[in-house]
């Protein structure tokens, strides 16, 4: 199945938005404007966008330490996100979360996570509440190839499969977990293959092909909404940049990244759209200009926003507040 041209264009714009956003964030970090331990998703845009394009606006996403792209793709406000990355008072989390712990409930983005694979066990519970409300939603749990080796992956997949919960486990396999190669972390080599042990579909796909991602997740979402239970999608992709900003990347060759760049998911869809005459130079420029303007606006907003007052560190802990302790 191929989506209609306008949806393809939306995916193209979506990937470009993630790409340009992350590149701007990298610059801002390098320029000392953004604090924290920063992990960006440059090169992995097709996964974030392919997944979110296959979801309804009210579907949920549980994200990772490398989560900006997921939030941008899910439709989160760039202003809220950028201000949060800056640690500003009007960031979406009032500056308390930052890059690794951001959430945007308004678009169903239930949180980045500084603990790997944490989302894998939260997801079945989101599935339970979806079932309870009979809302027909689904929830996506993103996790990396490295994170797949943690216990919560096993417990979460088993529980979701057992109770036929509407969960889509999406592994972003970018071949590396920080300095550790996928092949040296994952016995058997395939994460998708582990699905069989739980009696659920497990698919290994080209995560640099946004249509392949969209297709797999569309089917997984339909399955979830039908009440047939979870799916596991392993999307192979490449992280173009360091594990974190500042990573000297001594563990991998320059050629690997160069090869990765040749599979650029944004350029790939752009070629397809141009070949199909859906996109031309002028149109592409308009799309890009629009996105750049959005990002400029988000940056200007973040720059202009105040930092939180120090004592605001004491708010937001509990819903029933205040009390002395």
């Amino acid at each position, binding site marked *: 199945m191929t989506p209609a041209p306008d949806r393809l264009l939306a995916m193209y714009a979506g990937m470009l938005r993630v790409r340009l956003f992350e590149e701007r964030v990298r610059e801002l970090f390098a320029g000392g404007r953004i604090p924290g331990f920063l992990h960006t998703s440059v090169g992995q845009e097709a996964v974030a966008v392919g997944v979110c394009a296959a979801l309804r606006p009210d579907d949920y996403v549980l994200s990772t330490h490398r989560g900006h792209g997921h939030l941008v793709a899910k439709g989160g406000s760039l202003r809220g996100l950028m201000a949060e990355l800056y640690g500003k008072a009007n960031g979406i989390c009032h500056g308390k979360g930052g890059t690794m712990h951001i959430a945007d409930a308004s678009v169903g983005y*239930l949180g980045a996570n500084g*603990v790997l694979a*944490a989302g894998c*066990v939260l997801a079945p*519970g*989101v599935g339970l509440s979806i079932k309870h409300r009979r809302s027909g939603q689904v929830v996506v749990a993103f996790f990396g190839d490295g994170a797949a080796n943690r216990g*919560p992956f096993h417990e979460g997949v088993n529980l979701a499969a057992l109770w036929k919960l509407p969960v889509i486990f999406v592994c972003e396999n970018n071949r590396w977990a920080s300095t550790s190669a996928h092949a040296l972390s994952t016995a058997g080599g395939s994460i998708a293959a582990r699905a069989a042990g739980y009696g659920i579909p497990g698919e290994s796909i080209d995560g640099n092909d946004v249509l392949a991602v969209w297709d797999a997740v569309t089917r997984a979402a339909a399955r979830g909404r039908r009440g047939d239970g979870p799916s596991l999608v392993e999307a192979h992709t490449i992280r173009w940049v360091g594990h974190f900003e500042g990573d000297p990347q001594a563990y991998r060759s320059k050629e690997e990244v160069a090869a990765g760049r040749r599979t650029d998911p944004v350029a790939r869809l752009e070629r397809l759209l141009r070949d199909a005459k859906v996109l031309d130079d002028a149109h592409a420029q308009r799309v890009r200009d629009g996105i750049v303007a959005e990002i400029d606006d988000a940056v200007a907003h973040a720059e202009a926003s105040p930092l939180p007052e120090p004592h605001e560190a004491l708010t937001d802990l509990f819903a029933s507040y205040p009390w002395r302790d």
Partner: protein
Amino acid sequence: MDFGDALNKALREEMRRDPRVFCIGEDIVLGVPFGVTKGLCEEFGPERVLNAPISEAAIVGSAMGAAMTGLVPVVDMHFADFVTCAMDEVANQIAKSRYMFGGQIDCPITLRMPYGIGRSGGGHHSNSVEAWFVNIPGLKLCIPSTPADAYGLLTTAIRDPDPVLVFEHRGLYRVTGEVGDAETLVPLGSADVKRPGRDVTVIATARMVHESLAAARRLAEDGIEVEVVDPRSLVPLDRATLADSVRRTHRVVIAEEGPMRGSTGAWLAWVIMEECFDDLDAPIARVAGPNVPIPFSPPLEAFATPKAEDVEAAVRQVVK
């Protein structure tokens, strides 16, 4: 009504009152091993009384996922000892999410934590771990000693919009007492004077409340009047009631079951110091377990179990 039945009553009433409330845990349909969840599945069905696989991380984690999206889970930890198997979910996820997310998402979870020494449970089924959670900002924590408090606190915990851990001493499940018919809630942060007395304040939790009351009865025969104060919730803590008692008695014993070192008792001693340093006529005395895991053999287990006579000895020391 016994302590276990009081908890069951709280669960049943809250599940009737609010369709979002559900229970999840291992073997809870039949209510094994302590009977607290017995009969709930018959009334509310298996969709609201979820027998989970042995997957503590997924049980606690999925409770959080459900809580973030509109449900009100009550988790049965089976034995509090096994919270170690879901420690990240409690300490890093449940405790922190509301704060990190700037208050966007509430996390109304209740974690029922059956804990404590008894019947040669041994090293993996006997521990007092509440001190760890007192040290984790973002969690509320209560610890009832009577059926009425068990009922009142669990009800409050379930209705609370934040995560609450309820430590249920497994040696108390068959203790009986009055439980009001109407909703007799016990708010978090309200200590209770279980016995008034003018000479010494004994601050005690859970099983140690009963041991302290037994000690108080014996001491009364010697004319020593002990006031037994039960904090009932540790977070938030009712400092005012504790301090008020100490300002009257000027002498303090703190009694708990967990190990001496780095425990809640040590922290409560600090709180008393902070509130009432100048009111103290004697050093605070503490009763707690020795700094060892809980051994299996009955005489060893008995040695590791703080009892009424330990409280009595501590009181005699502070009034000397």
